[in-house]
């Protein structure tokens, strides 16, 4: 399925965008780096340079040295910014408390999200991080980049920021750490004009949607996660940038029930790829797995000798619904009993594939503990087709938002509103009929909140009439 963006974006060529020459980019020697000491004492941080795992301290020191050696007119933020960040971090270790101030509302004109204000509470000691704001940059779907784009971001961020970043933040954005209030607008202009790139979300709005790798490099993807993620990101730009919600709202897109972006645990609206027809079986490939000609589970267990592959023990017995069996040497699946958990497909990807009639299951209300405790997403729409232009999905989203924006209190996530009102009320609000698929079990308590219209004759009764039958 070839895919082209609706609006072709201009290509970025680093040779045209760049700020720094090669000589400036390689302005120190290995020897200088070895002997380099930052201006503050950081004994605990230096301890973190040891060990095999990539050391963020060693990395930060590289950047600190580079900035020392850059010409004054090649950066707009203090040259000491990295050294001061490290120095303050050491103080935080010494004192067991952070030294970033609470609060600070900053942003770019007309947007309510995408920039997070950050100030040091030790500005006299670490003046170059007195302002140290974060910019969230909306990442391309599934986080593929080319070096022209990344190098352009790097040059811009070296020049107008601290040179420190996260690839990536938990929600998915590319996170640029540390710049001054003055530089926020210029950075936004550079991002939009030079890079054709917007910032992401923060605050009480739609957070930057994110998706798994999907059809780009996965045989399991049941719908085009990247396309849906991109489409909804574009379609809901207003909600991303101009907060109108009670609190944050997250979309995440998993291509299959394996859930590689964890949508079921951390998105208010979780889209998980699934299918409604039969698992496709290649019986010859099943035999090849049994014969030991193909390594099971894509070789994910090859670090240890688990013995010969045993289809009975490793697949059929582990099937949560026990809907599989071997009949006359062929694998048989009772598909109407299957709950599409993916285990058999994961173990034998060459032999088994999801069905061809694919779509999404939609779940609502996942969140981390703050405020009312952690919630997992609740299955509400068992199956929906997910094909461009995705009008069916947008229509559902808007019904959900309407309910949440009407009923949600300040800082109340959708999952909490669902709890407060109950699932039946939520279903009514979005106009969907109840189904046993939505619950693990029917209710255990009989405290049913019958409505007046449920009961013949209504609730209004005459006490006199009652007393005519029952003496006081």
């Amino acid at each position, binding site marked *: 399925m070839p895919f082209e963006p609706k609006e072709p974006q201009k290509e970025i060529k680093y040779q045209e965008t760049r700020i720094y020459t090669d000589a400036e980019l390689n302005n120190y020697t290995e020897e200088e780096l070895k002997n380099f000491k930052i201006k503050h004492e950081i004994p605990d941080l230096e301890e*973190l340079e040891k060990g095999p795992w990539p050391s963020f301290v060693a990395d930060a020191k590289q950047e600190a040295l580079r900035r020392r050696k850059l010409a004054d007119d090649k950066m707009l933020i203090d040259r000491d910014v990295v050294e001061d960040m490290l120095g303050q971090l050491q103080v935080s*270790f010494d004192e067991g408390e952070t030294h970033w101030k609470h609060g600070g509302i900053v942003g770019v004109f007309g947007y309510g999200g995408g920039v997070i204000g950050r100030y040091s509470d030790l500005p006299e000691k670490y003046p170059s991080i007195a302002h140290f704001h974060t910019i969230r940059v909306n990442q391309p779907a599934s986080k593929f980049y080319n070096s022209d784009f990344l190098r352009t971001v790097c040059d811009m961020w070296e020049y107008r920021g601290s040179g420190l970043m996260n690839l990536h933040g938990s929600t998915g954005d590319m996170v640029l750490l540390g710049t001054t209030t003055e530089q926020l607008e210029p950075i936004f202009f550079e991002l939009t004009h030079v890079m054709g790139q917007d910032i992401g979300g923060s605050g009480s709005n739609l957070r930057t949607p994110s998706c798994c790798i999907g059809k780009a490099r996965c045989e399991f993807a049941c719908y085009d996660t990247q396309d849906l993620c991109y489409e909804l990101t574009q379609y809901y730009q207003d909600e991303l940038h101009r907060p109108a919600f009670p609190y944050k709202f997250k979309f995440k897109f998993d291509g299959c029930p394996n859930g590689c972006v964890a949508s079921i645990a951390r998105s208010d609206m979780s889209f998980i790829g699934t299918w409604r027809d039969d698992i496709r079986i290649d019986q010859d490939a099943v035999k090849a797995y049994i014969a030991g000609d193909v390594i099971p589970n894509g070789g994910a267990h090859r670090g240890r000798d688990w013995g010969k592959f045993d289809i009975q023990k490793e697949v059929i017995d582990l099937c949560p619904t026990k809907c599989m069996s071997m009949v006359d040497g062929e694998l048989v699946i009772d598909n109407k009993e299957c709950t599409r958990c993916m285990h058999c497909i994961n173990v034998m990807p060459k032999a088994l594939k999801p069905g061809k009639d694919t779509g999404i299951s939609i779940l609502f209300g996942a969140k981390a503990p703050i405020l009312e405790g952690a919630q997992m997403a609740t299955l509400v729409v068992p199956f929906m087709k997910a094909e461009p232009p995705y009008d069916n999905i947008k229509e559902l989203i808007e019904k959900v938002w309407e309910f949440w924006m009407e009923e949600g209190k*300040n800082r109340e996530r959708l999952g909490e509103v669902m709890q407060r009102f109950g699932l039946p009320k939520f279903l009514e609000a979005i106009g969907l009929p109840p189904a046993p698929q939505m619950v693990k079990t029917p209710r255990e308590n009989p405290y049913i909140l019958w409505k007046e219209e449920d009961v013949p004759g209504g609730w209004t009764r005459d006490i006199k009439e009652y007393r005519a039958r029952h003496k006081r």
Partner: protein
Amino acid sequence: MALSLDRLGLYDPKDPLKDRLTDLGPRHFWQYFPPVIQNNYGKWAYHEVLEPGILVHVSETGDKVYTVRCGAARFMTVQHVREICDIADKYCEGSVRFTTRNNIEFLVDSIEKLEALKKDLESRKFVSGSYKFPIGGTGAGVTNIVHTQGYVHCHTPATDASSMVKAVSDELFEYFQGMTLPAKVRVSMACCLNMCGAVHCSDIALLGYHRKPPIIDHEVIDKVCEIPLAIAACPLGAISPDKTPEGGKTVKIKQERCMFCGNCYTMCQALPLSDKEGDGVTILAGGKISNRISKPKFSKVVVPWLPNTFPRFPEVVENVKKILEAYAVDANKYERLGDWAERIGWEKFFEKTGLEFTEHLIDDYRLAYDTWRTSTQFKFTDAAWNVSKAAGGIE
């Protein structure tokens, strides 16, 4: 179009709307796919992990793409990202991707390029000796530990993140570079209950935790906070209005009711709760988000509190290893950590891991009853005999 060198670039503070572009969204994903990905979009047939960190995906067209996955610290400098770009230019026509768990992935289309790339990546080290691009993080092992900002950039953390993750990752390095576990083990870290990293469904979750109720900054609370918002912020109703001796507006806190979530501090900066002795680390275990075999489940608190021993968190590292090593020897193939704990019973989990079971591990919050055992189906362990002795049931 070149990046601007003017102090304010294209921005004119006197006319902020001039030539303004907004709502562009992200760059479109398609342009960043290497040709082998564009040509095989939606056509992938199967994949295999050739060795830890090395994947091959095979398309219906017969094309193959090899992926080399490398660990990363998440926190990076432009200097480091430029080195990633150098590698991408040298081997991958400039293309690179990042995973949800902060790994870096380089994609190549031939075995020859793969071998050269592997050798190059393994040779790159920081001057202090740690790998810049360690290869691993696939299959039945431990992949990159996702985490939050900690003291590097956050205003509410109860611990640091980057340092704890560095310390734990160093110790679990063999599991990152190996695939010897019964199933994948996802370790995650969040530096406070806000859980920006949403770690509540991880096989092993490390969580920064405050243990002292907020201090009230009576002097400024009325000036810097909306007091009703601060009161409403408490999920347990522990905050109520009060007056200072001078007659100023402030709040009082029922301290015994506080469960240290920090939500009041988020709403009101005059209620800080960080404290060197109070703050520490909670460990949760047994969560998962995949629907594979068993349903997704929350992680359970298995170590209520450990001290913040900067910079290497030896207590945290030791406890994580206890959990991981007990699981590694005892669980069945394909069995996730939480499924193992449920199969053997949580009482056996504590016996096999050697973790101490304390009163803090019995839920006393909302819906706690759902987690109490209402059955005689349990297994005997030393913990059970201790109760029997205390009850006078046995000698």
